[in-house]
Structures are given as C-alpha cells and as structure tokens.
C-alpha cells in the first residue's frame, strides 16, 4: 500500500476520488505521461458505485449485476496507465493555489499539484424524517456498501423507503442475495409524472430505460410497494417500527434513500463557484465544457459536477484529463474528444426524465417541528424555521446561532435542508439563500497528523491559516 513517505512533493496532476471519474482521469493522464497521483479515502478504489470492485466477497455476479462488474475494466485501465493510486488517503485541504493536504495512515503531507481534478462524486440527499437518527435506520447507500464490500445482507424485518434508481437497484440486489424486504414505502409524489412525461421520449432512447423497467418489475413481483405521504422511524433506543399513512410496521432495519447530490465540500472549500440546480435541487460547481471550474487549474468531474450517473462520470473524467494533458503536455497524444462527448451526451439523455420522476416531495426535504435536521448538533427543523423567522437570512448566520453545520460532518447531512428551510420560511429561493461557507480542513485532522507534516510544510500551512 502507498504510504505518505512514498509521495513526491509535486505532481503534474492530483486526482481526488477513486470512483469512475477519478479512475478514468488517472488512466488518461498516466497514459499521456503526466506524473499523476490519485487519492482515495476508501480501502479500495471504485468509489461508491464500484465499491470494493477489486475485493468484493460477492462471488455470484448476478447479485450485483453486470453494470457493477464494468468497474473492473476502469480499475485495470487506471492501474496500467502509470498513475500512482493511494488508498486510505483522506484529502483534508485544497487551496486555490492547488496545494493538496492529504493524510495516509495518520501521516500528513502537503502536495503541490500542477492541475487538480476533484472527483469526489455524490452523496445521498439528506432524508430528514422523525427518528432518522435512531440506530437501525441507515441510508440505502450504506446498506449497499455493506453488501458490495463485505457481502452483508439485511437480516430480520427490513423496510425500505424513499425512491430513485439506487433504492430500486438495492432492493433487487438484496432479493437476489436471498434477503427479504417487508415493504418498500414509495415517497415520490405521483404527480411527478406530469413533469416527467415530456422527457419520456429522450429517456426511452437512453441506456437506462429498458434496465429500469426490468428492475422495477423484478422488485414489484416480490415486495409490496406502498405510496406514502408521511413517514416516521419509531423507537426509544433503536428502531422498532416504521409509521406511515396511519399504519405501523414492526422493523429491525429501515433503509432510506431519496436520490444523490454532488459532494461539494472540497471544491467549495477550494473557492470553486457553485450554483443552484433547480431541477436537481442541489448546488453544483459552475464549469465549462471541459469541466474546468472558476479556479484556474482545478476541474470537477463525475457526479460532483452535477448528477449524471457512473458511466457518464467516467466520460467526464476523461474530458477533464484531456484538458489537463493539453495544458501541461500539449505534444502528448490524447483520445478523440468528439467521440467521448458523444458518449457522454448519450449517457445524459435520460436524466431530465429521471430527475423529474424522482423529485423528492417538499415535505421530505423541508421538514417541520421536532424532526432533527442537523444530526451532529441535534438542531430541529422547528428551530431552524423559528430562527429564519427572526430574520436570519442565510446558512452561515444560522450556523452561528444554532451551531448546525458546525459538527464533524460539516454540513454534509444538513446543508441542503437548512438552505431549503430558510428559503421556504423567508419566501425566497435556495439560490438566493446560498450554502454554508466551507473552509479547510474539510475532514477532521488530528494534532498528531498535523505534527507529522514535514516541518517546512507545517510552517507554510500555519502561516497561510
């Protein structure tokens, strides 16, 4: 495994994140002869979509599906390309001068990058319902990680709730793995169809249409699907029941999911300009067609650039890498961009339909009353709304008053909710309200790690802060 002491002080390209975008970018850059390092926080590459692709104990290929297996090719491509791939490497800082702070096994380093491709992907949209902090309530993505990486299948009474492609895919995977699901509580409003319908023709031409229909059939044949307008996890010290539509269902595990949103923390902390995407209901970086951000030399590729899925992420990674290669080594051969852009366009075709169809209901994005919004500081929706009523105009002021967003997750599980709550309460838009101002370190770094920086680097950081 790559250690901190193996790292050079400078690389032409630093890629952050080992999902499809990061792997494809590292493959292209390495092949073109750029000195390239890929930092990935997880024990193995693959990102969330191809999580544990090189080590999964799930031997039966049918369980996770062929799309998952496609990740193997990307890993092989990145490995033969010549890039250094460092796993267990947490990037805690990135500044506009492209100085990258990274920790591997408790050892910290500062690396100067000629260019940076941020490929930090997506995370699941917050799903703030009453009781979502109880042990026994987990994100669907989390359960999928356990299945892919450790071959763990939900056991006991499992209820799934929410909507979106990942929820249905996970349901199918659990069933194929011999698991049982008591019910799927579909929280997507039926009227979403009205806005989705005009985009149906495009979706039908996309690679996702046939697969999606097949998946829904597979799951619906074996699991009762109930449309719900309200949802609550009930229990004292852990989940005991799921309450919905005036009914209660005993449950040991509740898996929540209502789509994914870009993981913006690192890019925002680096000063990259972001904008509100009203269709996808999230902030995303402002990028040009090569995925260059507002900060020179820093690109954002993959789902972090706006949600489009794993296959699109890889194409975006390639495009960003080609831009880096052209900037740093114009004589190096690069693949035909036209072809890559065409493939990307095809991948993105069905997106509008999926976005509108799986647009989470307002009530599940903008909760009320005692529902916890900020899991770290245990701030409720009612408190955020009340403070907004008192005149608090934005998330940063809210942070100062309520401490929401100040905990270790740094707003990753409350940021969008707080923005939307303030907008709702003040009758304005999320674009107007904005997001938390983020500063490095974007991941907690210990005093011991800080002390492990080679002396010159530690001084530089101390002076800059």
């Amino acid at each position: 495994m790559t250690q901190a002491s193996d790292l050079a002080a400078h690389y032409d390209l630093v890629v952050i994140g080992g999902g499809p975008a990061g792997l494809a970018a590292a493959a292209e850059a390495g092949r073109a002869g750029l000195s390239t390092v890929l930092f990935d926080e997880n024990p193995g590459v693959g990102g969330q979509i191809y999580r544990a692709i090189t080590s999964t104990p799930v031997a039966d290929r049918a369980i996770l599906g062929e799309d998952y297996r496609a990740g193997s090719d990307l890993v092989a491509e990145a490995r033969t390309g010549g890039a250094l791939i460092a796993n267990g490497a947490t990037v805690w800082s990135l500044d506009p001068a492209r100085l990258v702070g990274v920790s591997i096994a408790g050892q910290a380093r500062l690396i100067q990058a000629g260019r940076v491709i941020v490929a930090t992907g997506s995370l699941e949209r917050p799903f703030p319902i009453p009781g979502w902090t109880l042990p026994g309530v987990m994100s669907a993505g989390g359960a999928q990680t356990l299945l892919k990486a450790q071959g763990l299948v939900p056991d006991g009474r499992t209820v799934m709730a929410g909507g979106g492609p990942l929820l249905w895919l996970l349901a199918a995977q659990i069933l194929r793995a011999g698991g049982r699901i008591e019910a799927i509580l579909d929280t997507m409003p039926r009227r979403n169809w009205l806005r989705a319908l005009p985009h149906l023709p495009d979706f039908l031409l996309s690679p996702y249409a046939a697969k999606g229909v097949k998946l829904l059939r597979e799951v619906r044949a074996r699991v009762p699907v109930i449309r719900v307008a309200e949802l609550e996890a009930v229990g004292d010290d852990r989940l005991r029941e799921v309450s919905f539509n005036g009914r209660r269902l005993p449950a040991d595990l509740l898996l929540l999911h209502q789509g994914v949103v870009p993981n913006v923390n690192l890019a925002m902390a680096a000063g990259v300009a972001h904008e509100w995407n009203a269709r996808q209901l999230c902030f995303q970086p402002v990028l040009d067609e090569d995925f260059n951000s507002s900060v020179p030399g820093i690109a954002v590729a993959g789902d972090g650039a706006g949600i489009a899925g794993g296959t699109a992420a890889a194409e975006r990674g390639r495009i960003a890498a080609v831009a880096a290669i052209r900037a740093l080594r114009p004589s190096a051969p690069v693949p035909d961009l036209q072809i890559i852009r065409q493939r990307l366009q095809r991948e993105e075709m069905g997106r509008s339909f999926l976005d509108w169809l799986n647009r989470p209901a307002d009530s599940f994005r903008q909760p009320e009353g005692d529902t916890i919004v900020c899991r770290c500081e245990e701030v409720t929706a009612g408190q955020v709304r009340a403070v907004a009523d008192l005149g608090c105009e934005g998330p940063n002021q809210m942070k100062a008053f309520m401490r929401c967003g100040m905990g270790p997750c740094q707003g990753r599980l409350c940021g969008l909710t707080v923005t939307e709550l303030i907008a709702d309460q003040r009758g304005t838009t999320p674009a107007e309200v904005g997001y938390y101002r983020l500063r490095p370190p974007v991941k907690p770094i210990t005093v011991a790690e800080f002390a492990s920086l080679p002396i010159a680097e530690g001084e530089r950081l101390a002076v800059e802060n």
Partner: protein
Amino acid sequence: MFKRLADSGKSVALTVDGRPVDCRAGDTVAAALLAAGVDRCRTTPVSGAPRGPYCLMGVCFDCLVTIDGVGSRQACLVPVREGMAVETQSGRREAGR
C-alpha cells in the same frame, strides 16, 4: 440486522468493549460491528442519544468509536486488524481524542 452472504474470508478476532467478536478480513470496523449485531457506536454530546453507522461512506460521523485507545475514529473507514480493541464511546467526537 445483517447476515453474511459468503462466509469465505479469513477470520479476524477483535474485542468490542472487551467482548470477543469474530469478523472477516475485508470488514471495516463498522461492518464487523453490524455483522455482530452491535448497532450503536456512540452517544451524542448534545442529548446523549445513541447512534450507529448511517452512511458507511465516511460522511455522517455517527460511527465514531475508539480503536486501540485512539478516540473518535470513523469505524466505516477503518479496516479490521487481528487483535484490535474497539470501544464504543459516549459524548466525545473530536478526532483523535
């Protein structure tokens, strides 16, 4: 809450709050806890409510535990090692303490 699909991996022995727990090479600490039926990692500093792993991808920090004496490590990011001593924790959540 969870069962193992393929019980093929090499066995790894840990202790959780002093109790022996058997898990598999390739587990993260969070996966090992969940597979052993341990569904809480810590209590919160604000209300003392119990929390267990939620995201399993290093984002939520609800999985913080003390590993070999080092507090507030993200259980979902740390691979298991033979002989590891894992302790659930209360309140604290500052990295490394």
